[in-house]
């Protein structure tokens, strides 16, 4: 017996060790349950990370845009509306009012980790006979690359943006038959045009984005759009991507700027993730229930098997509370030990699955995400489940009449 262990722990561990086979089976059962939880949760986290990576590769967490222009109803001198029919005006690109002030506000706001003013507009790009409508994004590389890590997705050339450079997507490069160093003619609706050199070709993981998005220096875009010193949007990153919508609402409330979070702009994807989380939670609940019933069944049998020993313990001065704790500890230990093996099984399963499921090009299908909190939470959940499952048998053991128990 260990000197540092209190009586209840000694008795609980010995009872479990004595019923070795029974203990092994139930730990095995708990381990399988926990393994399923870890595997499912790990898969979900990995898939979530994969979706988020794909969705947020080419877009900021929050984008501040100039609110839509609206037409005011015509009123007479007394404030009475004379003509209630309002035609929605065509939206033209206008600069964001007081954008440096808004940028500074954003920089000071908690939860926001990156701020980058940009200018977005439509343009036409031409190379020889080929031409394409594009979305021209003028960015400050120093801040923007912290929000959309374009250098990480460069497949040819480099992420260089001087006033003469343009970065285009792989699909556009294919359509135009262009490569790094080639010249492209870029013109906007107002008639302004520039000849820019392809500095890099980027693959943002989305065909449409790779065909449409092009990146130039902010000053180049301002010059082309005739909006010197102006920006149309401010892109933000936040510390926790799941807080993006809340922060966006806070920003909208404190400024007269429209704030669109990635959650709002990808509502369908977000609800899909939510459904997955809900499904995963349900699986956890049912697995935890089956684990709880398994532990409870084993301990109920143990109480019956050990009723005489419980009686002897009671006769030698063991209190009801001590008996209660002996069985609660057994439940907790079964849950905890099962969770340790289960966590190992689940982690091994997901690592193996991750290694087995590759894309045709040999790259990983999804990033492997094994958060240590998943293991800590699962161990706590299993231990708590074990304790709760042991409650009824433990109360039964503690309430045993020693006379009846000794008689067997």
């Amino acid at each position, binding site marked *: 017996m260990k000197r540092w262990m209190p009586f209840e722990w000694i008795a609980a561990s010995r009872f479990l060790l004595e019923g070795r086979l029974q203990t092994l089976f139930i730990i095995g059962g708990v381990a399988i349950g926990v393994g399923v939880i870890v595997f499912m949760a790990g898969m979900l986290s990995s898939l979530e990370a994969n979706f988020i990576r794909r969705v947020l590769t080419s877009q900021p967490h929050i984008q501040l845009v100039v609110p839509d222009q609206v037409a005011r109803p015509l009123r007479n001198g007394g404030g009475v509306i004379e003509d209630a029919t309002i035609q929605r005006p065509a939206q033209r690109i206008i600069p964001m009012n007081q954008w440096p002030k808004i940028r500074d506000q954003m920089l000071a706001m908690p939860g926001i980790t990156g701020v980058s003013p940009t200018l977005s507009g439509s343009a036409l790009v031409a190379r020889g006979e080929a031409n394409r409508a594009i979305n021209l994004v003028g960015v400050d590389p120093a801040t923007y690359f912290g929000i959309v890590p374009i250098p990480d997705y460069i497949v040819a050339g480099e992420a260089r943006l001087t006033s003469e450079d343009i970065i285009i997507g792989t699909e556009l490069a294919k359509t135009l038959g262009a490569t790094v160093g080639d010249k492209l003619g870029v013109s906007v609706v107002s008639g302004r045009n520039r000849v820019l050199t392809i500095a890099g070709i980027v693959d943002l993981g989305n065909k449409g984005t790779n065909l449409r998005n092009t990146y130039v220096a902010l000053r180049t875009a301002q010059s082309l759009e005739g909006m010197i010193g102006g920006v149309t949007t401010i892109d933000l990153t936040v510390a926790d991507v799941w807080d993006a919508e809340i922060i966006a609402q806070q920003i909208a409330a404190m400024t007269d700027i429209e704030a669109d979070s990635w959650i709002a702009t990808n509502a369908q994807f977000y609800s899909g993730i939510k459904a997955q989380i809900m499904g995963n939670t349900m699986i956890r609940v049912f697995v935890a229930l089956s684990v709880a019933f398994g532990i409870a069944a084993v301990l109920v049998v143990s109480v019956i098997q050990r009723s005489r*020993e419980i009686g002897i313990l009671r006769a030698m*001065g063991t*209190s*009801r509370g001590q008996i209660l704790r002996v069985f609660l500890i057994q439940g907790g230990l079964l849950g905890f030990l099962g969770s340790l093996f289960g966590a190992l099984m689940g982690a091994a399963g997901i690592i193996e699955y991750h290694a087995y499921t590759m894309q045709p090009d040999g790259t990983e299908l999804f990033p492997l995400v094994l958060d240590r909190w998943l293991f800590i939470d699962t161990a706590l959940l299993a231990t708590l489940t074990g304790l709760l499952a042991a409650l009824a048998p433990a109360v039964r053991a503690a309430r045993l009449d020693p006379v009846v128990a000794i008689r067997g």
Partner: protein
Amino acid sequence: MASPVLRLEKVCKSYNIGQPSEVEVLHDIDLILERDDFLALMGPSGSGKSTLLNIIGLLDRPTSGRLFINGQDTAALSDAELTHLRGHTIGFVFQYHNLISAFSARENVEMPLLVDRTFLSPAITARASALLARVGLERVMNNLAMNLSGGQQQRAAVARALAMSPDLVLADEPTGNLDTKSADSVFELLREVNRDSHTTFLIVTHNVDLARRCDRIVEVVDGRIEA
């Protein structure tokens, strides 16, 4: 004058109280056990011996009457207080399955001390070893209880009953499951402890020969003590 170790006054015990099947199994039991007493409790099966033993051992409560341990009236004590009093003043030796099989002989003897003090200490281990040596089990003290012979198990049970230096040891057929030689040996051990430690013993037995070797014999017949 010191209080007797045990005093029963008009103790009655009934079961199924208030129901048609109500039955009184003990009627007005008066009994006094002084320090050093070595008493045999005899009686036919169903006479109420075990019920009386359970009441004396504070495992059960009388329906009426009073029970004093070392002069302390136990009627008003809570379950926790009774458990504490039982642990500190009464030792038990049962007939069957006396030891906890998951533990060694030494650990079984350490158990009452561990229950009382929570953590194992060198003093507890030393006491358990000394008690087992006293009952002649020093060579098998680390064997699991289930690997001991019946006689060895009863000896270990005697050592365990003495672990808390109780004033009273209750032995329910301590030799009933043993061969004659082992039974005699265990009985002599109880007698020796009684002489050396002045511990009071109340032994339930059907064995008339053993009972005759006790200082006193009390017979229970139909729930009454026969003179």
